[in-house]
């Protein structure tokens, strides 16, 4: 009886700990990560809005995947050199992660899905009630991204210098 009670406590504590460790990791990326700005374009003109989130493609300024090599489906890294405020970050190197240059400290890990590089940053959630005011990714849209040890967390979408929600509210008026 005592063993089953102890096991029940462990069965409750460990998953809760793992869950909050995950949240802590994401918070760490947001707090300690280097902030980058990257240009985005529409993902699919026919279905840009799905449910409560906006899907888009990040425009890295250079093709990162050729779509021909099986090795590209492995971990791919993209190195950035931060630029001035309100300017998109520049890609300085891209390729297989173990071959990453030593001076590349700001980088994003991802994977090539044929010709598309994905790094888990291609989605932005916002309330569906605003969907009617946003039927396309605006032309000068960028994402504000926090990058830490290859992991990226999207903080906001900017349209010019305006955060997305303010842009939508402006459109509503």
């Amino acid at each position, binding site marked *: 009886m005592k063993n089953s009670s102890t096991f*029940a406590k462990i069965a409750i504590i460990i998953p*809760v700990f793992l*869950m909050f460790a*995950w949240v802590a990791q*994401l918070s760490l990326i947001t707090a300690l990560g280097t902030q980058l700005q990257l240009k985005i374009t529409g993902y699919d003109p026919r279905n840009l809005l799905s449910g409560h989130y906006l899907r888009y493609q990040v425009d890295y300024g250079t093709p990162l995947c050729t779509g021909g090599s099986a090795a590209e489906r492995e971990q791919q890294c993209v190195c950035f050199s931060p630029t001035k405020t309100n300017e998109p970050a520049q890609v300085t190197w891209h390729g297989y992660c173990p071959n990453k240059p030593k001076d590349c400290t700001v980088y994003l890990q991802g994977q090539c899905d044929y010709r598309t590089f994905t790094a888990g940053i291609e989605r932005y959630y916002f309330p569906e009630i605003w969907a009617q005011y946003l039927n396309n990714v605006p032309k000068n849209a960028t994402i504000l991204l926090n990058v830490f040890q290859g992991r990226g967390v999207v903080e906001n979408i900017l349209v010019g210098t305006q955060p997305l929600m303010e842009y939508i509210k402006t459109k509503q008026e």
Partner: protein
Amino acid sequence: MSRLHTKIHTWVQHNLINAHQAQAILDYEAKHSTNYARFAVAGIGIIAILTGFISLIAANWDFIRPAHKLFCYALLQIGFGLAYLKTPGQRTLLKESLLCVFTLGFLGGMGLISQIYHLSGPVWRPLAFWLVLAFLPTLASRTRLLAHIWILTLFVTILYFLSHLFNANLLWHAAIIACSFVGAVFMVYSFGVGPCAPWLRLPEHFVQPLLRISCATLVLFSSVWLLVGPYVNKATDTNGYLFFFAVATVVALLSTYWSHRALTRALKRALCYLFTIVFIFLMLPFLWSPSIEWLGTLVYTLGFLSIWFFVAKIGVLRGSQGLFNLATFVIALRFIGVYFETMGSLTQTGLGLIVSGVLIILVADLWHRHRRHLLKWMQHSS
């Protein structure tokens, strides 16, 4: 009436026990028996309540700050865990329901965190993470509901992972059907005779291969229905429907093959049970009435209830407890169906879902408490 009643009656006839002992055994079993259907239905209610809470939060997304959302989620998640630990008893419906909500709540939490941090990625990753989180609570559970959910999620995760690995978008439906086949057959093997049997051991009466086969068929049927439903849910798609029926029958026969060691003279009986279960499952889509005017709906509902009342009566006359339980269970589900038909799209709101969940749990409990009274009345009037 039930298998136990038959056995007890046989023992009394052979003077192995006397009538007083027989009655004492029956009273004890009646008091301590576990009704797994009640747990399963309670599980549906729990999911509805959870979904309702999440929906309420999502509807007011703009007004709640991320830190507050995370804090509320943490309170709920830890709260359900503590409630499970503090609830007395070993295997009560309340205790197991709390553990179920706690475990399934991680899925809601992952969805919430993904929205706050705008995460994206292949579907198999959050499912795999949930499998890790849910593993220990599933082992701690005293019922099999979580184990079945965990195993099913494992197969779905493998399916999505393989699809992602091989980029098999074009082969999507063939892969789904193939994995459903393999999954259902493997489940039967694991549950009954395979290496996972000690861990995934079924309750005693489920050791019977007949019920094992029926469960495998139902699981397969449900999985194929859910995954290919949009393609067969057309009034004119008779070929699709027949294919769907054939798939379920073929896999059920495969399941029978895996259990052949346990089957002796009961093969014909097993096939009868199999086709009964498949037939009843095919009847279940009629649980909800078609979109017709109120008088037509009333006639439809009364007709549906009459048919299932008749099935319950057949169960009593044939001495089949399972058939009686199933028929009364379907009748209970119909009342829940009336709620959904009346409320319409309001059931998709947060509050509607929470009310639905509470209603489902209440109906499940009422069904469990009062079906014996109905059984006694039917036996008396037979």
